[in-house]
């Protein structure tokens, strides 16, 4: 048999399953977004001339959720990259028990998000959680970490940063391991300070890994669901509702599948747009540096 045909046959089962689970749902949701499919139609699809999309454009809750999803993704991914780099540098340094340190640092990433989100709900509890106990010890009034509409999003960001920074750190650690130690030694011999080594050697060579971590985390953060559903339940006053959570509410609570599909596709388009922008920006940069 033709060797290329054998390869295709070997890859086929996996690719077919991927098509069923990734491509078909996107096509199906795109089609469903042009249909009315809710309690009113008995959940049967019925063409409605783009009414879902018109509704989306005028839906203040959609625009608010889009803004808060972007805010969540931008701030948490930025923090994760900074902290992840610091964590990777610590985990890279040789020393006794480094394997154990890596495993323990990785724990928050390995445990289920819903489980940890529930844990954070208790940490943020007003008035009995540990954070409020600390405030009380300093003589301050208890703070509603999850009940203050203006600031709760920040506390969902902190929980997300805690949970996913280890993943970023692990990717960057892979990058650090690929940098030959001799390069750093030669810079040390030239009398470069740690800060200079970081700027001149480590960061430029880490760029591919930083890009990968950025793209991965950006896509995941734009689809944030587990964390906000369990930690803040989208509240208070809808201030932490993400696009994915809104889509979920439309399908499972309001039983409006057509509009839920519209939200899914709108989120998907936003995701493609942003990751494409990130990809283009990151692709051009390395060329400028090498010139």
């Amino acid at each position, binding site marked *: 048999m033709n060797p290329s045909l*054998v*390869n295709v046959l*070997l*890859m086929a*089962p*996996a*690719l077919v*399953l*991927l098509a069923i*689970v*990734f491509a*078909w*749902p*996107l096509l199906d*949701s795109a089609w*469903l977004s042009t249909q009315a499919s809710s309690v009113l139609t008995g959940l049967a699809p019925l063409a409605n001339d783009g009414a879902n999309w018109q509704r989306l454009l005028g839906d203040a809750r959609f625009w608010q959720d889009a803004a808060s999803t972007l805010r969540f993704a931008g701030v948490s991914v930025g923090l994760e990259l900074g902290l992840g780099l610091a*964590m990777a540098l*610590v985990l890279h340094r040789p020393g006794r028990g480094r*394997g*154990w*340190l*890596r*495993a323990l*640092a*990785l*724990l*928050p990433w*390995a*445990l*289920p*998000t*819903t*489980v*940890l*989100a*529930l*844990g954070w709900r*208790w940490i943020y509890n007003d008035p*009995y959680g540990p954070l409020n106990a600390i405030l009380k010890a300093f003589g301050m009034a208890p703070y509603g970490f999850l009940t203050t509409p203006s600031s709760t999003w920040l506390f969902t960001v902190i929980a997300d940063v805690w949970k996913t920074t*280890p993943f970023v750190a*692990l990717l960057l*650690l*892979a990058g650090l*391991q690929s940098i030959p130690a001799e390069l750093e030694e030669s810079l040390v011999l030239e009398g470069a300070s740690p800060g200079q080594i970081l700027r001149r050697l480590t960061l430029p060579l880490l760029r591919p*890994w930083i890009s*990968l971590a950025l793209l*991965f985390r950006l*896509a995941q953060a734009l*689809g944030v669901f*587990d964390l906000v*559903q*369990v930690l803040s339940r989208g509240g208070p006053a809808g201030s932490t509702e993400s696009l*994915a959570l809104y*889509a*979920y509410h439309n399908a499972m609570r309001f039983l409006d*599948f057509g509009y839920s*599909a519209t939200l*899914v596709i709108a*989120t998907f388009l936003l995701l493609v747009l942003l*990751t494409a922008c990130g990809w283009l920006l990151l692709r051009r940069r390395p060329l400028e540096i090498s010139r």
Partner: protein
Amino acid sequence: MRSLLLLWSLAPLAWQLYTSLVTPEALVQGTGVEAGAYWTLENYRQVWSAEPPIWRYLLNSAVVGAATTALTLALAVPCAYGLQRQGGRLRWAVTLTLLATAIFPTVLLFLALLQLARALGLANNLLALSLPYAALCLPLAVLLLRAAFADLPPELEDAARLEGLDLPQRLRHVLLPLLAPSLASTAILVFLFSWNEYPIALTWISRPELLTLPPAIARIAGSSLFTVPYGAFAAATVLGSLPLLLIVLIFQRSIVSGLTQGAIKG
């Protein structure tokens, strides 16, 4: 620096452990409670004998995790092998597809997958969950295993071919034994993903006794918004984390090297 890192990673977890081991009075009043009424195992007794008991969710998650891991490896090994030997445009297209699907947030698939589950009668079926789970894990698994295949010297397989071994024999007797470390770390990562997945389990499973751990925990959290039994919650989170804690600590080398090696070569 190291102790700061450990404090940041472990303090929230330690707080859960502490919460699970003390009485509600101790949680609320702090040091004012007398020693005898401070520590307790009551929270664990409560979640262990709840209806359904927590071990039921752990068992469900373990079953789904095992099925997903087996299915993913069965599909990913041939795919990774084919991809490694394939050249040209097809290789490039498949790799790009795998990368794109690897970063895709799974929650956007929930609506259509829910309809699929209803149409095919797969809802409330634990083993059926491993179908979408395997698909979601395949991109990472194939990329990791392809990098591992690329590491094997090509002469090895040529020699086995000259001995007259066909492809399944070469895989089973020559290539896969050498890939054991990569297979192990891939399997662990797939199991972790399956153990933690939430949106699809949430929408596919509605019968309480079939819930996997993440939706079960979220359901407990949603059931009592105002009078939250945090001690029992904490006991549930500790018990739900324990299997993974053991896996991470036992296999820490495989996990770290699997992810870092795969990222370097992938």
